[in-house]
């Protein structure tokens, strides 16, 4: 209940979630030696690529590279605002 009131009043991310989100990025950079600039450039490329088909909320883009067993996986989450209607698929 107190959490709910806090949330309603602040509408701010809980600090533990901020810590967790920051660590996800920090650990990826430490583990595979990817710089923050490179991550940012990758984010921008993903947004540019997606923008041809959908309108996305750029600030919502989250990216995480993590180890899953033997391989590295990249997981990206982004909020879709709308689908671009003018896009005409080429007939196959």
């Amino acid at each position, binding site marked *: 209940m*107190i*959490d709910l009131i806090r949330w309603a009043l602040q509408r701010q991310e*809980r600090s*533990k979630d901020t810590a*967790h989100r*920051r660590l996800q990025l*920090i*650990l990826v950079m*430490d*583990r595979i030696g990817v710089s923050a600039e490179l991550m940012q450039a990758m984010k921008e490329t993903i947004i540019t690529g997606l923008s041809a088909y959908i309108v996305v909320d750029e600030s919502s883009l989250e990216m995480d590279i993590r180890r899953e067993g033997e391989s590295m996986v990249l997981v990206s989450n982004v909020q879709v605002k709308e689908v671009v209607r003018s896009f005409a698929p080429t007939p196959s």
Partner: protein
Amino acid sequence: MTTSDSSAVLTQPSRNGKKKAAVSVGKSFVITSGKGGVGKTTATANIGSGLALRGRKVVVIDTDIGLRNLDVVMGLENRIVYDLVDVVEGRCKLSQALIRDKQVKDLCLIPAAQTRDKSAVTPDQMRDLCARLRDDFEYVLIDCPAGIEQGFQNAIAAADQAVVVTTPEVSAIRDADRVIGLLEAAEIPIPSLVINRLRVGMVRQGDMMDKDDILDLLSVKLLGMVPDDNGIIVSTNRGLPVVHDSKSIAGEAYRRIAARIDGEDVPFLNLESGQGLFSRMKRMVGLGKGVSS
């Protein structure tokens, strides 16, 4: 607690008629963290004492040469004659550098040298020393210095398993992840994690990462969680590890950690309950299930 049972299982008569451990080779663990000040030395003292309270033969080694502290945490600083460097340089016999614990039998400490530096010992010397200790002790616990330089390399050289200690903070977790990577490179199996100084109130408010957040970030298995407890400071003041205090919740956490290392499957401490005044009182009179759940 189970001194007689466990020794009955583990001992058998040897040639000279004396009792000797059936498992001739003891297990060695390094207790490490990367970051300083997260509670490695306290963890080593408590896990070592906890195992000895279970009737195990344990030796704890302080490898923080130049900054020794395990002796004071265990209250043994006045008994030091010889140290780790004296042993590896042959100035004394191994048995002369083994300091007997005051509280529990079958627990010994090899203190670090205070006037030398990390280069006074090599990884090969550590491997030799631990090989000798494994013949006489069931558990060899190596307290690692902070950092990832030579002291760290010395400490992990002779370890076949690792315990990583962290606190629920960004910097400690980052350093723990570095250390986990280095342990992996040294071909030590997946480390066990102790999350130290958890503050239940802050976790509840969303201001401190909980065990799930931390386990999501680090590739480790959980060994135990130790709540932040003023009793730790009191126990360090006295040189008496908190694991000896049957009323302390941190002591209970370390008793369970020692049990898990010893192969017993015990549930994790329920830190959520038992925090309020009422449940604390209930626990004191033995009604609550806060700690034992």
